[in-house]
């Protein structure tokens, strides 16, 4: 079989499937990477499954999602493979990569960096869209139908990647996503400034889902977004109202933004609405 190989790190039965973790050497990131993969039990040896990619937020590894979100029950019921990549390259030891919780290690932002010293390793956009999808196609029993979702920085990543690759990712949703990073202090002064550079301002918008929606002209997209109204990051970093406004002006993009009283940014929030998101994806991917 052609394609890069993966090595099984662990496999544990969970509901009617197996929660696995794999590792591989990434060409895009130039380092060894882990990813989680939940695989339902096959009803017959020929069975193939749609694949849902989940992108995690700042400070996460490939472990948080599989331990804390409670998704496996629904992935098992709907018979979906769910893949959870890590949030940045690992072990690169670049100067400045561990000084902030919102930049560098565990904060790859799902973009391809243009500035030194990040550009050689911090290529999470290409990692997810080109390398990981190919790896899954080559190594796991998949139908070829992919969806993508995520939380926070991963919500940002899922929407940018999903909107820019509509033929690759057929379904799209997000939990408390960072919707308009180019309008936040974090984006302007830290993440985009350091990864992409001030001199490359013209290239920032392709990594901002609100901006991507404004110029989007592809197949119709239907994005489910759940957001807690007691979220500590709501007005400083997330800005879902900007996403909704952009979608309301573009007939090709529908954003179903559901605000939930009393919920915050945590995995307690994610787990509460996980069933709805899996259902959203399963309807499209199993069709």
């Amino acid at each position, binding site marked *: 079989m052609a394609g890069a190989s993966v090595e099984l790190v662990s496999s544990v039965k969970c509901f009617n499937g197996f929660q696995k973790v794999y590792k591989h050497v990434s060409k895009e990131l130039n380092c060894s990477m882990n990813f989680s993969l939940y695989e339902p039990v096959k009803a017959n040896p020929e069975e193939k499954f749609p694949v849902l990619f989940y992108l995690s937020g700042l400070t996460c590894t490939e472990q948080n999602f599989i331990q*804390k979100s409670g998704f496996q029950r629904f992935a098992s019921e709907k018979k979906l493979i769910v893949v959870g990549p890590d949030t940045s390259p690992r072990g690169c030891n670049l100067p400045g990569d561990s000084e902030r919780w919102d930049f560098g290690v565990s904060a790859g932002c799902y973009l391809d960096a243009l500035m030194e010293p990040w550009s050689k390793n911090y290529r999470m956009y290409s990692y997810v869209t080109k390398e990981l999808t190919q790896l899954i196609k080559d190594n796991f029993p998949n139908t070829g139908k992919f969806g993508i979702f995520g939380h926070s920085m991963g919500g940002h990543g899922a929407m940018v990647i999903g909107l820019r690759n509509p033929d690759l990712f057929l379904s799209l949703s997000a939990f408390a996503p960072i919707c308009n990073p180019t309008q936040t202090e974090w984006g302007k002064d830290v993440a985009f400034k350091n990864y992409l550079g001030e001199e490359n301002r013209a290239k920032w918008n392709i990594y901002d889902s609100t901006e991507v929606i404004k110029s989007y002209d592809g197949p119709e997209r239907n994005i489910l977004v759940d957001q807690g109204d007691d979220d500590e990051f709501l007005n400083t970093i997330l800005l879902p109202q900007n996403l909704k406004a952009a979608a309301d002006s573009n007939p090709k993009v529908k954003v179903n933004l559901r605000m939930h009283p009393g919920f915050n940014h945590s995995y307690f*929030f994610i787990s509460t609405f996980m069933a709805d998101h899996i259902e959203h994806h399963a309807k499209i991917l199993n069709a």
Partner: protein
Amino acid sequence: TSSVVEDNTKVELVSSDKCFNGYQKIYKHWSKETKCTMKFSIYIPLQLHAEEKFNAIFFLSGVMCNEQNFIFKTGFQRYASDERIIFIGPDTSPRNVDLPGDRDSWVFGRSAGWYLDSTCEPWRTNYRMYSYITRELPEIIRQNFPITGKFGMCGHSMGGNGAIVCSLRNPTLFQTLSVLAPSCNPTSWGDELIYIPYLGAENRELWKQYDALEVAKAYKGPPKKILADCGSEDEYLHLLLPDKLTEVALVNRNVEVELHMREEYNHSYFFVASFIEKHIKYHAKALGTVNENVTC
């Protein structure tokens, strides 16, 4: 009468996160049993009206855990919310108490209190998890939270042994009982590691009071059922010994054991998450049929 400090059941909120139709909270308090500050988690469904009260389940965790693991790794809140039941998750040992040797073994000391009252130095002052769980914490819950007074008990691994011991020794307090991958007979392997340091080599009769199998053998209370699930690929099966529990039920008519071995599951929280719904539904239904525990 006791002093105000001795009877202090005051608790302080540490965190509160909305989860399903309720709140996952963590409280801390000074424990008179463990003589240190202890934390516990409590999941409280939203009250439909101000007078509403809930039945409550204690979940006892295994070695190496604290009050965090259960609330993040089992997904139980979905079912506690549906069944409208309070869930309390105590810690597994005294905290911030530094004693020599308390971190030498992952089955002893910190995060491994084994839900017993130690009689040996230097553990006996603080390592009183049996009294903490069966006397102090239920009273704290009664004083501070909207409960009916009906309690059930559930536990995983070391917490499975703890749940069986606490529930069978206090059958009218903890009326329903279920366990996941339970440690059923720890005195059969834990004499050097656990029982000699906590309870002393000369007092083997006392050990039996903290061993699920021994307590079940000697049990003479009202008929009690133990619902148990265990993975067939559990890496600790040779220490857990769940089959021994089913054997007791054959000779002691006061104890009924319903044990399910689950194909391919292991000891982890992935296993607990896969079966916690069944356990919660069991407690909810069973507690609905028992009378309220009348306590002072």
